[in-house]
């Protein structure tokens, strides 16, 4: 800490003597995930380059979300940069609450951003947030267990194969569950997973007139399949498992397969934390036989500037620094290529150093397989794959996923859960004036 302060002081001094640009202090709100923590640690590099200093407000995801939402809707002006996701960006951009990022420097090479990420973080063709890292979902599986079960994972499996393989890999006596999936309530946890599962069974949240669709057969089929498979081969108590719970199960060797965020790949293959680091294979998220959509989602954590910020220029400089190609190289030089923020730039996947990373190709393929503007088999009036980009969605989907979790736990039947989901969604949409 002392060292850091000394460094800051030295930088500030050198700038003063050089009579350089006016140095500002910008406040950044961010999530406490590993990649962001790393960015926080490396921000001295930014200070050294520009003279601007950074103050961090690092919060757990749920707290961050409520904190920045309160601030932006009331124009509180507490932050110069907010870390937001693909769900918030188009809604806030539409409301004119974010500074458009349409004048980034040529050096930044905005065309190098992965098209899926760029379009997901834009509203009406204007970019409102720059992707720090992006992800889709994919299958991570244990190659040794797959072999033991006498099966071979296709590149693009179906749900039917997954269910069969999960049953074959399950070995309750040895504490091995064929498959681990999210069942935890919350729109960003189990809600996201069951939504993409629904997509891959041909279901959708709303029809073109914003009518809730949980009374349709596709949802019943998807949910029944999910519950049936998890009862056969899932871990006990999966109704409370989210990303973290499944991650630790998988790292401890208790899962045959796990379908989740592509960023998890770097965790499960990290020998420091994972007992199965050298036995992990990857495949595309599955689909129901005959359905063209797969259970891929698309998400990005991105940096955006609230419209009220007084320090827009410094904030833009920071965003350009943190989401640039050179930042990726900076991380690679300090922490290795496996730890760079993935899923944001095309050039990363063309980089020969990165091609050796075992999960690089599958991550890219998964991201490319996701199409937020056209997420479902039947037409929908919304954008977003594992979410619906309307302000009411987070609230509705959290309530709905709580009903689903109760069904996973066996506290109610799938039919009851769907009935309640339909009622909750219809009621909330009515309240919102659709």
């Amino acid at each position, binding site marked *: *800490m002392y060292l850091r302060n000394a460094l800051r002081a030295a930088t500030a001094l050198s700038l003063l003597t050089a009579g350089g640009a006016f140095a500002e202090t910008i*406040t950044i709100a961010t999530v406490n995930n590993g990649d962001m923590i790393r960015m926080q640690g490396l921000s001295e590099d930014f200070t050294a380059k520009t003279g601007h200093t950074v103050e961090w407000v690092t919060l*757990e995801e749920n707290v961050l979300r409520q904190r920045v939402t309160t601030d932006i809707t009331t124009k509180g002006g*507490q932050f110069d940069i907010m870390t937001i996701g693909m769900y918030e960006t188009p809604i806030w951009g539409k409301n004119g609450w974010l500074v458009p990022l349409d004048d980034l420097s040529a050096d930044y090479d905005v065309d190098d951003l992965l098209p899926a990420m760029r379009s997901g973080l834009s509203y009406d063709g204007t970019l409102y947030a720059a992707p720090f890292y992006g992800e889709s979902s994919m299958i991570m599986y244990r190659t040794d267990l797959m072999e033991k079960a006498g099966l071979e994972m296709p590149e693009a499996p179906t749900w039917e194969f997954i269910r069969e393989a999960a049953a074959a890999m399950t070995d309750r006596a040895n504490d091995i569950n064929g498959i681990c999936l999210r069942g935890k309530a919350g729109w960003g946890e189990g809600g996201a997973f069951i939504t993409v599962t629904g997509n891959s069974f041909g279901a959708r949240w709303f029809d073109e007139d914003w009518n809730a669709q949980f009374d349709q057969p596709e949802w019943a089929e998807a949910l029944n399949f999910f519950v049936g498979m998890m009862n056969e081969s899932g871990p006990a108590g999966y109704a409370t498992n989210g990303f973290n719970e499944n991650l630790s199960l998988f*790292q*401890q060797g208790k899962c045959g397969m796990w379908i989740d965020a592509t960023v998890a790949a770097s965790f499960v293959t990290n020998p420091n934390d994972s007992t199965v680091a050298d036995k992990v294979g990857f495949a595309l998220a599955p689909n129901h036989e005959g359905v063209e959509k797969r259970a891929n989602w698309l998400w990005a954590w991105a940096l955006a500037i609230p419209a009220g910020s007084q320090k827009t220029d410094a904030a833009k400089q920071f965003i350009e620094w943190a989401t640039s190609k050179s930042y990726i190289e900076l991380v690679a030089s300090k922490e290795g290529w496996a730890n760079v923020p993935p899923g944001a730039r095309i050039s990363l996947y063309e980089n020969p150093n990165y091609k050796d990373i075992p999960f690089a190709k599958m991550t890219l393929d998964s991201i490319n397989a996701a199409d937020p503007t056209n997420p479902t088999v039947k037409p929908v009036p919304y954008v977003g794959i594992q979410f619906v980009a309307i302000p009411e969605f987070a609230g509705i989907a959290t309530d709905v996923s709580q009903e689903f979790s109760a069904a996973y736990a066996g506290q109610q039947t799938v039919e009851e859960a769907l009935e309640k989901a339909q009622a909750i969604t219809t009621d909330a949409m009515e309240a919102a004036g659709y």
Partner: protein
Amino acid sequence: MARAVTSRRKTINTALAWGVGLIIFFPILWTILTSFKTEGDAITYPPKFLFFDWTLENYSIVQDRSDYMRYLWNSVIIAGGSTLLGIIIAVPAAWSMAFVPSKRTKDILMWMLSTKMLPAVGVLYPIYLMFIKLGLLDTRIGLVIVLMLINLPIIVWMLYTYFKEIPGEILEAARMDGASLKEEILYVLTPMAIPGIASTILLNVILAWNEAFWTLNLTAAKAGPLTAFIASYSSPEGLFYAKLSAASTMAIAPILILGWFSQKQLVRGLTFGAVK
């Protein structure tokens, strides 16, 4: 004979009380132990109690990542400031309720307590908007005011009950000697009520220290106390038990130490007028 029985009873009491005490304390002990483990050791089965590779890694990570002293300092100022301000406002009020009671005194007291039942989250938006207007967002003074208001009813009530136990004759004697109201409060009443005031302060410092709704929602980079410090270690992606434990230990240590030293005071002082 009698002494032998007492001694046996004492042994049994000791064993029983220590057993219960350790069970109640165990979650905290476990948190402290976990803070010295690696993330891998923190979740291993069978759990490692004492025989693991003790490491300070988590503390150094936490220290590297966040400016602990700043959060600590904010906590001290906010908890201490709000309590002191509350005491200053509450002493006269409690004095008049105790020594010049009217028919409505009890109603006023109960009404004060009932203001604590307003659900905080319901008024987040109104308060946030007010804070923007007043320029109090992310300031320590703003939090001092809010936490003072939240705890004021408790402070008034506690002081009121202490003051009531002071015999009125002493005050009258002081008045006879020509003491002014101010002198009466300052030189007669307050010294007698010091034990009561001390335990009121202690309880309210604890309550303010642990308040996690307003302190999180009304701060950003400058005024955030230890509750905000904790919020940056709970539930990130990946393993976090050990780091969370280290951060938790750092967040509760100061108040735990304060509690340790003032334990006797707390045990004697928290009467709320319940002792007759």
